[in-house]
Each structure stands twice: as structure tokens, then as C-alpha cells.
């Protein structure tokens, strides 16, 4: 409850009770979910810009996502507060940016052209490593909160976050391919920018809900929070989120990868058995 005390320092007495209530409510809501996770994963990391007196303190509703048979996506609540030793500095408004980034994979972008009256793939470009999922949530329009130079340094906006990981090589019109790649990924919801979806209360408390899609790749995800003032990032916090299959999903996946012959036989056995069973069942029905 450190940040609640600090937060109260600048909140007028009348607003104090609701502010404390909000923090308590946030923590209580987060508790049961937070208890589910026991995965050993890297520790959260916090970095602070020099000369900045404001620091981000944050938590996640869960630091692990389990993919079960009925998994249809998940929502992660990222909440926190701004910790201050002194009164808030003058200047531009405070901004909060929350990002969630999935594990990276190589992606091949292919382009079709018409040859001999037929549309066929004629050229392609491999993007070395692009995150499978990337979402950005902000408390205000991103362009107003973040200077381009700061964006380049911290790689926050979608094009920069993707390019940060793999520089495409080869093809001369590489930009056409990378922009097509971003357009396709944004169209299917893998890359998302939700401006204004971070709720910031009294320049102190904030929360963001990041929705993870149903088609989720296993691996280590990273949630990051950036505090900005006057377009500069003044404090940064990031924490890992592990995404893994559990139960039947995990058992089948492991079997398919580690004992492919037996897995294949099992699949065939089911197919033959089901074929026979249906045939036998229909014969019984007909006889009556």
C-alpha cells in the first residue's frame, strides 16, 4: 500500500476516500487471479529516466495464461499508480502507455502478380522475427504523448516494435511488403492500437485491460508500462506473462511432438474405430 499513501499526498481530502477505495478494490480484484500463477519466470524490470521524480508502480491481474480446451481468449488487467516523492512537476500532462508483446517468429510475406492470365505468387520477403501478438493501449492519442525520437528509442508504436526485432533484407520495395504485413496483422487483430483505452484517474491511478485473442501462441509474453511527460518517457516498467497449454491440450501437444508414431496410431485407431462403430450402429437401427 505504499503508493496509496504517496498518492494521497496530493489528492484533496474530499477525494481521498474514493481514491483509497479504488486502490483497495483494484488489489482485491487482482488477488484471486494473481494467486493462480506459480510459474517461475523472469523478474519484473523497472527503469527510470534521469531527473524524473515520478515512478510507475504496477501489477498484473495474472502473470500466466493457461490455454485450456475451452479457451476463447483472455483478458489481462494491468493496473498501477504513479509514485512521487515530491509534488507533481509542472509541464505537459502525464501519459500512460501499456503494451503487450508476444513471442517472435519469422514470417514470410508473399505477393501475387498476374502471369499468363493466372494470379500466382511471384515474390516474397521474410521478416526475420515479428511478434505474434502486439497490443498498445494509451491514455491519450499516441502522437500527442510520445515524441518520434522517444518512440524510436523505446520502440513503442506498432511499426517500430515490429521492425525492432527483424530488419527485412533483400527485395527493393521492402517497405511495400512490411506495410502490407502490418495491414494484414492489424486486420486480423494480431496487432492493435487502442488509443485512450487506459483509464487514468487524478494523474495517479491507472488501469488497462488487454484482450488476448483465442488463437494464442505459447511462449513468454511481455507487458510494459511507460509513463510520459512532454513526449518523453520518464519511467518504464515491464513484467513477463507466460502463456502455456494445460491439461488435455498440453498432453496431446507433447504426445504429438515427442511420440509422433504413437500419436499417429492413436489418431488412426480412433478413425477406424469410429468408422466401424457408425457402420455397426446404423445396421442395428435398420434391423429394427
Amino acid at each position, binding site marked *: 500500500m505504499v503508493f496509496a499513501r504517496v498518492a494521497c499526498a496530493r489528492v484533496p481530502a474530499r477525494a481521498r476516500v474514493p481514491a483509497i477505495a479504488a486502490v483497495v478494490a483494484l488489489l482485491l480484484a487482482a488477488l484471486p487471479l494473481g494467486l493462480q500463477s506459480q510459474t517461475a519466470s523472469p523478474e519484473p524490470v523497472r527503469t527510470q529516466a534521469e531527473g524524473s521524480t515520478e515512478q510507475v508502480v504496477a501489477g498484473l491481474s495474472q502473470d500466466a495464461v493457461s*490455454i*485450456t*480446451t*475451452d*479457451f*476463447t*481468449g483472455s483478458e489481462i488487467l494491468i493496473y498501477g499508480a504513479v509514485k512521487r516523492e515530491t509534488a507533481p512537476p509542472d509541464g505537459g500532462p502525464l501519459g500512460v502507455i501499456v503494451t503487450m508483446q508476444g513471442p517472435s517468429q519469422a*514470417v*514470410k*510475406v*508473399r*505477393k*501475387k*502478380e*498476374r502471369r499468363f*492470365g*493466372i*494470379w*500466382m*505468387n511471384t515474390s*516474397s520477403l521474410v521478416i526475420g522475427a515479428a511478434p505474434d501478438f502486439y497490443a498498445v493501449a494509451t491514455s491519450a492519442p499516441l502522437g500527442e504523448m510520445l515524441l518520434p525520437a522517444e518512440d524510436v528509442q523505446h520502440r513503442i508504436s506498432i511499426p517500430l516494435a515490429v521492425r525492432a526485432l527483424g530488419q527485412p533484407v533483400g527485395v527493393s520495395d521492402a517497405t511495400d*511488403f512490411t506495410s*502490407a*504485413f502490418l*495491414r*494484414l*496483422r492489424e486486420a486480423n487483430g494480431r496487432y492493435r492500437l487502442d488509443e485512450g483505452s487506459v483509464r487514468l484517474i487524478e494523474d495517479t491511478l491507472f488501469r488497462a485491460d488487454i484482450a488476448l485473442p*483465442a*488463437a*494464442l*501462441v*505459447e511462449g513468454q509474453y511481455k507487458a510494459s508500462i511507460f509513463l510520459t511527460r512532454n513526449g518523453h518517457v520518464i519511467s518504464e516498467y515491464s513484467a513477463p506473462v507466460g502463456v502455456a*497449454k494445460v491439461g*488435455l*491440450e*498440453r498432453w*496431446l*501437444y507433447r504426445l*504429438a511432438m515427442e511420440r*509422433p*508414431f504413437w*500419436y*499417429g*496410431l*492413436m*489418431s*488412426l485407431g*480412433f*478413425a*477406424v474405430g*469410429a*468408422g*466401424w*462403430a*457408425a*457402420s*455397426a*450402429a*446404423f*445396421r442395428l437401427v435398420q434391423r429394427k
Partner: protein
Amino acid sequence: MQIFLPIAEVSVNAFVLIGLGGIVGLMSGLFGVGGGFLITPLLFFIGIPPPIAVATGANQVVASSMSGLFAHLKRDAVDLRMGWVLLGGGVVGSFLGVGVFNLLQRLGQVDLVVQLSYVVFLGFIGLTMLRESVASLRASRRGTAKPRRRGRSWIDGLPWRVKFRKSGLYISVIPPFLVGLAVGVLAAIMGVGGGFIMVPAMIYLLGMPTRVVIGTSLFQIAAVSAFTTLMHAISSNTVDIMLAVLLIVGGVVGAQIGTQMGARLRAEQLRILLALLVLAVCFRLALELLLRPDDLYSLQ
């Protein structure tokens, strides 16, 4: 009801999958085709990654053709001796086909070759069958149906003649072996069981009676797809058993209904229906090649 598929890593509606399996199973029982040429494009359409769609499609084909095969065995409509000869050719052919497929993959144009061969083969077979079966239906209506006649040709001069009692044939094993081999090659390249090629080849090339063609074709398809499924599971881990189970549940029921329907229809009518189905799939694939795609770029 949404269900997460462990290998495909996507969440899909279970009832949609059961329904898809049912439709394809119906085709299987009715026409003696495995349905691979229908299930694979349908799975692409609902967002299953292509390699998983191909491998799991093969697994589904095993179940639906098995279900049909048991029904045909009960009706004594399977020429097992012919089936084994075709299967021998099919296994050799699928080994050759996998080699060709890998070569095309290195050249980077495998998708195009697969699509083009679908259009060419489906178009040719569909048109030939439609013309022939409409003509024979008309002839039988007029009451001037001629008995199917097989003149003495080079086929009768080949060695190793064997009696195929159920088919009423006494021919060399070489033509059926070659038919099986050709279908095996095409099946491996196109990722299908090959029933839509096998059935017309048995009727028109080997001169088998339509009554035993479907059961015998199902026997060959079930065995070749089982072999393919196991190969896919071992070499590329692309069989999704959860997806397969849902497709199979719908598929085996559909196959039984299809077999019942098939027993009540005339052979010519069955052939016309299959020809129309083959032409419809051919037309859809041709459109894909000829029309400008919505998006020139795609991700892989």
C-alpha cells in the same frame, strides 16, 4: 461451442466442424470418394493452417471411408483382390509423389502446381463423366441401352492375367497396378485420397461394374490415407487429433446416410451427381486463379 485445437493453435466452433465432417462423409458414402478434395479447401476457409488441414483431412478420410467400406463389405460390393492390386500401386505411387512434392517445394511453386492440377484433373474428369453418364441415361430411357462392351484391346494382350471374380473381369494385373500408382502420385501431390480419379478410372479404364467400384475404391482410399496420416504425424507433426475427432464424429454418420442414399439411386444418376460436384469444385478453384485476389499480399 468454441474449442481450442492443440496442434492448429486456433479456437473454432465445434458444431461447424461436426457439420463439415457430416457433409463430406455424405459425399464419401454416396460416391465412394474420400472427400479430401472437399475437406481440405473447406478447412482452409475456416482458418486452419494449410499443412494441418491437409494432414488432418487425411485422418478424417480414413474414418469416413472405413465407415463406408464396412457398409459395402456387408453388401458384398468390394472386390478385395482388385483392391490389393490397386493398393500395391498406390503405395509405390505415393512414395514417388512425395518426392515430386518435395522437389516442387524447393522450386517454390507448389501451391500453384497443386491448384492447377486440381483444375485440370477435376475439369477433365467432370466433363467426361457428365457427357458419358447423360448419354447412357438417355439411351436407357429410350430403351436402347447397349450392354457395356469391352473389345479386345492391347490390355488383353498383357501377361499375368488374374480372375477378378467380383468384378467379372479376367485381365492382367498391370493396368490396375498402374492405375493405383498414378492415383498414388496425384494423391500425394494434391493431398487427397484420390477417389475422384480412382472411381472414373475403374469404370472407364478397367471396365469394372459400378456396383463394386465404390466399395473397392473405399478400400484403397482407407489404406492409402491411413499411410499418409501416419507419415504426416511422424514427419511434420501436423495431425490435429482434436480437429480430427470432431470431423470424424460428423463424417461417419454422414457416410452411413450417404451409403443408404446411394443404394436407392441409379448408377447413371450417381455419376451425373458426382460429375456436377467435381465440376463445381473445379470452377471455384479456377476462379481463384483467374480473378484478381482481394489482397495481393499474403502471410505464411
